């Protein structure tokens, strides 16, 4: 997943993901694999008004973004979708930094280089 937007006024994952999607990803990186129902139960603690539909839509949106993948699991209780992470949080953060720095180097090469050198010192 390549982030296309970086919100300077947001903290953490919210800078690159919408707030609820960021919260879901925080949880998914913790548990690695979960059903939408399990994520819903977790999200409901903080957002009591949240509905199953919201979680399902957001998780499928995260699949479209390439951060989660969906597979069918057949077991006790029948068939169901399970979602798993496609990348670790560290890898994701690394990719964000690389993407942003590449963009800065492409657009403001000298200033970026000068600033990075200054930080390095």
């Amino acid at each position: 997943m390549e982030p296309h937007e970086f919100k300077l006024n947001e903290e953490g994952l919210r800078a690159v993901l919408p707030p609820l999607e960021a919260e879901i990803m925080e949880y998914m990186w913790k548990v690695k694999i979960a059903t939408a129902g399990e994520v819903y139960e977790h999200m409901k603690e903080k957002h009591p008004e949240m509905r199953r539909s919201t979680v399902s839509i957001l998780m499928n949106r995260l699949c479209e973004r390439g951060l989660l993948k969906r597979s069918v699991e057949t077991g006790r209780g029948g068939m169901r979708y399970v979602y798993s992470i496609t990348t670790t949080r560290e890898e994701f953060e690394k990719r964000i930094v690389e993407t942003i720095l590449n963009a800065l180097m492409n657009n403001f090469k000298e200033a970026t280089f000068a600033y990075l050198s200054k930080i390095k010192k």
Partner: protein
Amino acid sequence: MLRLIILAQILITILYLGKFGLVVVFGSASMLLLMYLWVTRHSLKREHSKLEWEDMPWLYDGIARMANKAGIGMPYVYILDDYIPNAYSFGNSIVLSLGLFEVLDREQILGVAAHEIGHIKNGDTLIFPIIAYGRYFMLFLAGAISLIVHNTIAVLASLGLYMLYEIERLKFLKEREFKADETALYLLDRPFSLKEALEELKYYEDLRVNVRASALPGIEPNIERKQKKSFMDTHPSYDERIWRILAEIEGAMFRDTLK
């Protein structure tokens, strides 16, 4: 009404095209019949898994109980690998998408299944394909008359009949949806579960459209959304169905109090 329209179209075709009209009528009917048979044989894909009792006993038993109450045999139940909530029926089969199981609870899923059993019970799974292919039949005959017959009245009458068929078809399909809901209310132990399922599905659809349309900085679950309405819809809106269900349930409760 639909039968009369088709009959009138056939009569016009035979009247103006004579023996060739008969060939056109039987030729197009046979072609559509073959198409229908081919489609029905290939309607199940790899994404469909047949539901066995041990997969989900609560669902299998629930459907069996409602089918028994409806006086029909146990339908085949297929689970479709699709994350978007969806349900439909054909022949003696019900298809429920996996997405339904993510957004609805058990009672609500049984509510959706009851609606599909309603379609089977009311004969819609046989009537709907005929209506759908009848549309192509009408269009084909109207096209043949427009191209071959050089009589303005015949062409206008044929095109008019085709348009009338379209209007009646939409009206008919909507009525059948309401009828399937009515049957479902009779079949369900808890009729409100169908209403709740429709509310959730409406919420899902609205939200999905909004999520796609926006960059989604935040979701307001209680936001009031306007439903788009098109005169070409074959299904009544969720709101229309919910209102009718409420009226049915309240009417039944009122009748019970009078007893």
